[in-house]
């Protein structure tokens, strides 16, 4: 499953290295402690792309929806679903306090009892990073949708020549 992680790593400049390290499952010292969030998000992303692909080519499979713009609509839907799933997942982690302070602040301090906290005003991970991650997730999902299209569309009765007739 490092393949999935590698794919997300190509777009890490888009959503930030800190978020990348967290989602990879690393601790503040760069050691893998799990869980591998990319695996979870990646499998959901592939699953949704595949479902939308199957819906278009094999469930709906309609002779009036086999133009390139119909395919484009389903491509767009794949992207939109995965945009919100990517955003929602990371947003819930960020705002739920699940992401360690070392990833969310540039300056951290330790309390007397040893717990770490971030210094206000030094935030480096924002909601916008979650949107950016959502966008990266959407882009990867679109890529998978295109791969599924050209690999598996040939058995579709009505849409096998969509989008390129």
């Amino acid at each position, binding site marked *: 499953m490092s393949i999935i992680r590698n794919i997300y790593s190509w777009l890490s400049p888009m959503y930030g290295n800190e978020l990348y390290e967290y989602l990879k499952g690393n601790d503040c010292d760069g050691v893998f402690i799990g869980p591998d969030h990319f695996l979870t998000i990646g499998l959901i992303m592939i699953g949704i792309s595949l479902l939308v692909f199957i819906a278009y080519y094999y469930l709906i499979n*309609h002779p009036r929806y086999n133009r390139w713009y119909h395919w484009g609509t389903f491509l767009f839907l794949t992207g939109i679903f995965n945009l919100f799933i990517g955003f929602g997942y990371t947003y819930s982690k960020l705002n739920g306090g699940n992401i360690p302070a070392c990833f969310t602040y540039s300056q951290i301090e330790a309390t007397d009892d040893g717990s770490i906290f971030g210094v206000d005003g030094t935030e480096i991970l924002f909601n916008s990073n979650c949107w950016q991650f959502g966008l990266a997730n959407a882009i990867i999902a679109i890529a998978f949708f295109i791969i599924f299209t050209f690999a598996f569309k040939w058995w579709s009765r*009505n849409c096998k020549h969509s989008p390129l007739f």
Partner: protein
Amino acid sequence: MSKLYVFGIGGTGARVLKSLTMLLAAGADCGADTIVPVIIDRDTSNKDLSRTELLIEDYIIVNEIAKTNGKNRFFNTKIDLLNGELCLKLIDNTQKFDEFIGRNSTMSQENQALVDMLFSKETLKLDMTEGFQGNPNIGSVVLNQFDDNDVFKAFGTSFKDGDKIIIISSIFGGTGASGFPLLRKILQTPNVKGVDGKELDNWGLVNKAPIGAISVLPYFIVGSPTDGSLVNSDTFIDKTRAALSYYKTEDKKIDTLYYIADKLTTIYEHHKGGDTQKNDAHFVELSAALAVLDFVNPENNSKNFHRDTKNNIERTTYKEFGINANIQKLSFNNLTDETKRLIVNPLSRFLLFAKYMGYTVVKENNNGKEELVVRNVENNDIFEKEHKFQPYAHKRFTSDFRKNNNIQKLESVQEKFFEWLLEMDKQEHKFSPFNLLASSATDFIEGDLKIVKPDNLKYKNWAKVDNELNRQIHKIDKACENDSRFIELFYRVTEALINYKN
């Protein structure tokens, strides 16, 4: 491979042959492998004849691509022409009847006086180039020259054991009423010789061949004459009565004699002949065409043929055509189960095919008058709109496909088929099984016959047809040529979508 030789005499013969060709184009079951039509008419410029001729020419071309070795039944029955000709042209250069009989050239004074007693002045001066204008007494003289004709000789040469003959004629006209008994007599005269003195080939087989006849009684009248015509529809019934009493002598000389008639008569414009004699198609002609199919149906052999051990006709079977209700506008509901089984599926399937290709009936304004005409309408042309997107057409039926001569002939027949249905719909006694103005793929059959596969949640209207086209294309032999594959595909699709059973 059995053949049926169909002799159509006069305008009615030509129109019945046209209806028969339409039924065969639609894939109606025919008990003969090959139909050989021959039209006998002195009036070779008759528009009804030329319409039938053009239709049969197109049919023959399309039949070549209809041999798919698959399920296809459209254009399935072969139509062959004798010597490549449809019309048995009667040879002579004379124009007027008195010239033909040589009244002024070869007759003695006594014979001239006899002729003057038998025929009126108008009859003697009749210009026969446009037919006999309702005078069977002239026809019976002029038509007595079949045996000198090349087409007739070709008929003898091609005739084989097992082939059948049927003669179609009207009983109230000039050519048909006189032609039928004459032709029957020649066909059953032994040792008929040509001008060269040689006996016509296979004439023994012809003499003993199964033979039927269809006699069409008056089903239309004509308006007042405008071109010096002698045709008078007031005399139709009297002529019919006279001919029927003569036809009693045909008993035991014909295996099956069909009488087709209609009490509800249409009024046609009065044209004595030539290219203005163009009568709209009528349900009576379709009924007569069904009589042809009844004659060759092997299941009817025990009813149609009664021969003794020496192959002589023991008795003649007389048949009429009936419908279930005497109403002005007929749909499939008003036909008997037997007739429905014959024509509901073929006509409906072929019509669906023609509609998919864009043919429909539209209202047009012609000199201030609204008329219904058949046109190929771009908006209704589903093939043109969809072939760029549908898998069934991909790399097979491209934009250039319709320029193929075979496909153009196919579409020509489709257009004529629509016109034929429209003409029958416009008659006084209408045959209107379809709503010809409907643009939908499913709601075009009138009445409560639910034979089109219903729409489901997913596929409606023409999308249902395209879905079926995309499904069926893979079942067709890949070795088929493209145009044959096209016909096979549309037959399979229309068969899957329209299936009447009773």
